[in-house]
């Protein structure tokens, strides 16, 4: 076991015992990946903040029941996040997608910036199309191509074989390609 892994085991043990500082360190380590995952799956910033908080709140309240089964701690957090997102989407079927581009509005649109704007729009299209994929496809695509995790890691996180994960990724990508193509062709032509 590496020193890093030993530290992690210690932090988890302390957090299980009710050590807020230890849990705070785990939070700092895993907040960003969980936040990103939730953001991709939800797409509404205000709700993403709330859901991510809820995920960690649930984790804190369930820490005493956490058992190390040889899987990464993130896998446990990820399971909580998946279930929380699932509950949210079940309650709120019509999600108002937040497609506000993250851009400095003070910058005037030169031809180069116009290209950037077009590219941004395509990214928004991809994010919207992602929400239409199946649960598994969304998970795998988000973790692999947005989070940059390996198939091995994803396999551990979602408890499926690597081959299954690759197949899900493959189908998800082809589905995305179709959806994006359809949406691009649905867009009215810009003058």
């Amino acid at each position, binding site marked *: 076991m590496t020193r890093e892994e030993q530290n992690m085991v210690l932090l988890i043990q302390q*957090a*299980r015992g*009710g050590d*807020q500082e230890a*849990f*705070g360190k785990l*939070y*700092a380590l895993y*907040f*960003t990946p969980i*936040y*990103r995952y939730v*953001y*991709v799956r939800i797409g509404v*910033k205000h709700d993403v*903040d709330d859901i*991510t*908080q809820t995920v*960690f*709140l649930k984790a*804190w*309240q*369930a*820490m*005493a*029941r956490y058992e190390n089964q040889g899987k990464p701690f993130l896998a446990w957090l990820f399971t909580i996040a998946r279930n929380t997102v699932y509950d949210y989407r079940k309650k709120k079927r019509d999600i108002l997608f937040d497609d506000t*581009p*993250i851009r400095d509005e003070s910058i005037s649109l030169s031809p180069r910036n116009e290209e950037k704007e077009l*590219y*941004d729009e*395509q*990214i928004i299209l*991809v*994010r919207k199309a992602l929400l239409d994929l199946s649960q598994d496809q969304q998970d795998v*695509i988000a973790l692999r*191509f*947005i*989070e*940059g995790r*390996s*198939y091995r890691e994803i396999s551990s996180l979602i408890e499926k074989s690597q081959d299954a994960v*690759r*197949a899900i*990724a*493959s*189908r998800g*990508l*082809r589905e*995305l*390609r*179709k959806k*994006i*193509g*359809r949406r*691009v*062709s649905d867009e009215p032509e810009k003058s």
Partner: protein
Amino acid sequence: MNYLHKHNPIGDVDMIRILQRLDAGATVVEILKDLPEENREEARELLYVIMLLDSVREHLPVPHEHFEHILQRLDDPIPGRIPEKVTKHTHEKKASAEHIVSPKAPKIFVMPHIPTVFHLQKYFFPLSTAVAVVVLLVVSRQYVTSEPIGTDAVLFELSTEYPLDTFPDDEVIPSSAVSAQETASIPAETLPHFDILTEAPVVPTTLNADNANADQKHALSSRGVSSTPQASRGTLFDESLETTLTPLIKNESSDAYGVFPEDTFSIYLQTLTDIPIDHY
């Protein structure tokens, strides 16, 4: 992007191979080069999707939440147990919210995008076809106008399929009771239609008692439409009926998708059933 390319689309196995090569560090050019010519365009588009996904990461907002915010939501520092205080507080909060807000939210009927008499009869209960027609006229105008459905088209369909004089009694008549021959015999241009804005039925000016042929005269008179628009107005939408309906028509409680509040419908239906059938 051209997505019309349908020849031998890339399958799971090919796609997995592409992904493996990408993971192994192969460039897009190398991957495309090794593919059959007919699959290159599709593969290029798939790789473009991957590139867009990769860029999504840059578009994700930077999270600002701090652990302290989470702790503020906790009253009990001991994990694994939800403190009684929190639970009680939550219940109190929920109860007070329920007290303020109406305890029973109004039920909503989701109407089909293009409502027809059959939809009304199916979704509610055996409704007189005459009543259903009038309901539909109002519903069409009030709830469907912002959709590119064409209320005139709906009304035309109604007036051809459900001529008012075919159901003088208060009974439900299936559309099959109106023969295709009968509807086909009525020229479309002779039928009255409603102007959405003025509410007044408009009879085509090209047709009047003088220039109408015998069949057309019969078709017009069978629908209570005389040679002047003024006379036709009183037949389908009697003044008193219109007065009764106006407040309901003006009730703005819907959206473009045809959501129809049950309460409004109940009041509306009650109003309609109170009106003697002769009005129709």
